[in-house]
């Protein structure tokens, strides 16, 4: 028990040290690498808190996907980084920012420490109603039955984020291919990995998606792995990103949220409330929503990393 406590304490100190280093370090690229390590350490902490669902999401989205996005951003900013350093904010602004950040952190800490013991929880209620949904993983039941409005908005938000990225395209490239065309040595190690890994990664991604009904896992984590496999093939130059004007791409991007909304509104007729499921049909409907959301999420997450369109569409 004391050994576990020692591990927990050193893990916490390590996370705090990495967080401090990310803020203190001047080089953007170094800060991004620190952020990825921070995400992985945070995932370990979630495992120690017996929250494997959150840990999987943190590792996949927080460390992996956000890390990839930030590495891309840092690469783009590299050219202008020296110029922006001259416009570094003055002492007053930095002090104000530090005071604001410390106040927020302190308020959060007070909020967490002021919770009564035991903390108020809806977990027993969620587990007690688990049987009505037909799924075995209480986290999935919360995300897709008890609080499905949050998940619906989440799926729409990532789509809006993708539209935001696309809107950065120059006029001449609108409708064209996102990101640069990658060229790697076809006999090189990257092309080799991009041929070897995707079959395994696709199975692992689909497994994590499917097992989410009963065990930790789910569509976001599975979709991240599938998106990573697709990006690997793209980065190795074995395939290209699809032009964003393609009809199949746009149809798949809106299918997930549309199916979710349609089933949600159908609930107001069949079950008496928006986003409610008629009795006995909860599990098939949840699976239908998840299957419809899966391609949307894979495409959205991968294309978010691929970036804004920058090459002309084919004539």
């Amino acid at each position, binding site marked *: 028990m004391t050994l576990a406590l020692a591990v927990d304490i050193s893990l916490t100190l390590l996370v705090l040290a990495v967080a401090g280093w990310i803020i203190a370090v001047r080089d953007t*690229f170094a800060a991004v690498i620190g952020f990825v390590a921070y995400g992985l350490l945070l995932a370990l902490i979630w495992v120690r808190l017996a929250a494997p669902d959150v840990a999987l999401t943190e590792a996949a989205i927080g460390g992996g996907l956000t890390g990839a996005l930030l*590495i891309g951003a840092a*690469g783009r900013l*590299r050219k202008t980084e020296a110029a922006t350093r001259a416009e570094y904010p003055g002492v007053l602004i930095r002090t104000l920012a530090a005071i604001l950040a410390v106040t927020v952190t302190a308020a959060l800490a007070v909020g967490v420490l002021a919770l009564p013991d035991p903390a108020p929880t809806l977990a027993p209620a969620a587990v007690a109603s688990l049987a009505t949904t037909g799924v075995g993983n209480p986290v999935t039941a919360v995300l897709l039955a008890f609080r499905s409005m949050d998940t619906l908005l989440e799926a729409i938000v990532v789509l809006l984020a993708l539209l935001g990225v696309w809107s950065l395209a120059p006029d001449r490239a609108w409708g064209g291919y996102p990101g640069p065309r990658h060229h790697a040595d076809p006999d090189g*190690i*990257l092309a*080799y*990995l991009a041929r*070897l*890994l995707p079959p395994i990664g696709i199975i692992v991604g689909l497994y994590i998606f499917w097992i989410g009904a009963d065990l930790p896992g789910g569509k976001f984590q599975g979709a991240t792995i599938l998106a990573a496999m697709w990006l690997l093939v793209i980065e190795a130059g074995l395939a290209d990103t699809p032009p964003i004007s393609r009809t199949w791409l746009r149809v798949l991007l809106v299918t997930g949220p549309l199916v979710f909304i349609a089933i949600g509104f159908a609930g107001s007729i069949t079950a008496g409330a928006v986003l409610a499921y008629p009795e006995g049909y909860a599990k098939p409907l949840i699976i239908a929503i998840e299957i419809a959301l899966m391609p949307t999420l894979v495409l959205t997450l991968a294309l978010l990393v691929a970036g804004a369109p920058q090459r002309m569409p084919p004539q």
Partner: protein
Amino acid sequence: MSLVLDIFTIVAVLAGAFFFLAGTVGLLRFPDTLTRLHALTKADNLGLGLVVMGLLPQAEWPFDAIKLIAIWLFTLLAGATVGQLMALAARRGQPTP
């Protein structure tokens, strides 16, 4: 029998931890990128291999054991690939994107 297996686990995991320590010291002390990469990938390959080998007698056969071995194989693959890519970028004399 279980005592022998426990001792095997302790010895193998300690040996693995030693390789991680040696790899970290190498990462900090070696003079250039290529030798530092060498130290890092050796720590991953040998260190994690020994840790996994040590944990095998404690893991449930067959699925947990196979998962452990799969994790080691994936780390080998990732370490070898990333090591090559970083070495290539270092030789071109440009920072990795």
